[in-house]
């Protein structure tokens, strides 16, 4: 995060300032269900922020607020200083979200899925787009799938196509929702390397939701842990190696205890 951080757009070679994200006192209710409870944190321009937390703690909902797909019940989410949900922010800041489910366009081939964004925004001619798309497919070992349709892909392949589609967008702000959850260890390491190198090359501001401890410890600048809709930890990954908070320690390194299994403790 040193010096003036800029995101260079590889299509136009125009440099735009890297963007930051601020979440202030964010609360979100779905009916009577309180999913996020007064969450505040800021992600600096060009930072890699990893968000961890148990299933159902509200991580995906939080990401959707940052791209403006959900509106806060209370509080504020700002991208580059402006309201995340406004159309103007979406016009100005190029954001990409890798959905947990992939959210590929089922009626389009893998190639067309990747090419849609540059085509719609007329970022390059077909030859230029082809080069970008094939490059993105190649670095995710997806060369053979260009003509296939999403329904014909495995779970992990869909995830990689979703990541490739986000890479082609060359965003200033990149959000990943569990990018490595369905991938083998080598592919997971590759994804971590891609995320880290994007930051080095293009100063992309990155938020990663992940349960992958290796990813968090190796590439994160800071880590947040969301539990029950509250941020219970916020700090550099080094602090996670010997966490002071017993809840955090138990979440990160749960002991498998066959004498006193957790599901039996719940019953009594």
């Amino acid at each position: 995060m040193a010096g003036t951080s800029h995101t260079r757009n590889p299509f136009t070679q125009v440099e735009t300032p890297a963007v930051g994200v601020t979440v202030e006192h964010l609360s979100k209710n779905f009916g009577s269900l309180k999913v996020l409870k007064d969450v505040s944190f800021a992600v600096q321009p060009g930072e890699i922020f990893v968000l961890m937390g148990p299933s159902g703690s509200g991580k995906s909902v939080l990401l959707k607020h940052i791209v403006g797909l959900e509106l806060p019940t209370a509080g504020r989410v700002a991208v580059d200083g402006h309201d995340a949900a406004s159309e103007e922010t979406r016009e100005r800041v190029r954001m990409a979200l890798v959905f947990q489910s992939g959210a590929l366009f089922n009626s389009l081939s893998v190639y067309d899925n990747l090419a849609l964004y540059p085509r719609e925004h007329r970022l390059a001619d077909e030859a230029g787009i082809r080069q970008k798309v094939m490059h993105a497919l190649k670095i995710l070992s997806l060369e053979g799938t260009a003509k296939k349709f999403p329904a014909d892909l495995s779970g992990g392949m869909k995830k990689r196509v979703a990541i490739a589609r986000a890479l082609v967008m060359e965003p200033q702000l990149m959000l990943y929702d569990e990018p490595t959850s369905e991938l083998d260890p080598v592919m997971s390491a590759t994804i971590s390397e891609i995320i880290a190198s994007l930051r080095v090359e293009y100063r992309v501001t990155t938020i990663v939701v992940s349960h992958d401890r290796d990813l968090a410890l190796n590439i994160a600048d800071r880590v947040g842990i969301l539990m029950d809709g509250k941020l219970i930890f916020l700090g550099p990954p080094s602090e996670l190696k010997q966490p002071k908070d017993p809840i955090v320690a138990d979440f990160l390194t749960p002991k498998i205890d066959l004498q006193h299994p957790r599901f039996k403790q719940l019953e009594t």
Partner: protein
Amino acid sequence: MKQITAILEGFGSTLQLLIRSIGYAGTLPRQWGRFIEQCYMIGYTTLPIVAILSFFIGSVLALQAGYSMQNFGTQQFIGSLVGLSMARELGPVMVAILVAGRVGSAIAAELASMKVYQEVDALVTMNIPPARMLVMPRLAASLVMVPVLALIGDLVGWFGGAIVSKYTAIISIEPEAYFAVLRHYTHFKDVLNGLVKAEIFGFVVVLVCCNIGLNTRGGPREIGASVTRAVVVSLILILVLDYFVTQILT
């Protein structure tokens, strides 16, 4: 009370979608491929069933007219009855109903599944407005194709009436006589009137089905519910609009 707010909400969101889509009309040339694809969807898939139904509606009209006219010996005017009824009323309404059933349901199903599987969310984060990519080309295609379908329906229906008039014993009118009367009493204005109706109905059906599809919430089960709602709302709107449009146009 709940129903009334739901209807008002539906009306409001449909109007909003309409305004947004019109705002993207300028992008039609660069969405030419999608426009042609939708024209094909609306035209080609609906044409056979439009032709079959129009043929039989024209036939039944002639048969019923012949049955009631034989008492007065006015069978020679059958051509005018079939010609006018088909052109002004039955042609456009029937085409609109078929478009609702075949095209509207398919649109609602496709957009609802895109919504449920977060494809619409993905478009929004990519700053590609769904109104531009998904709705506008469909609306434009309906404007072009539905009147064409209605015109074909008119012609086939007239033809059906001619065949029945010739081969039914109580009528027995030669096609030349039938079409001479039809041409004399059915003016270009009447046909145009019907095509305008079809245009309005088709446009409204496509718009409403797009809106209901895009407003689907929840899981895959809601896709089916959206399709049913889209078709039912379309049918009601066609019949209600028919009354008012007919009043205005005559």
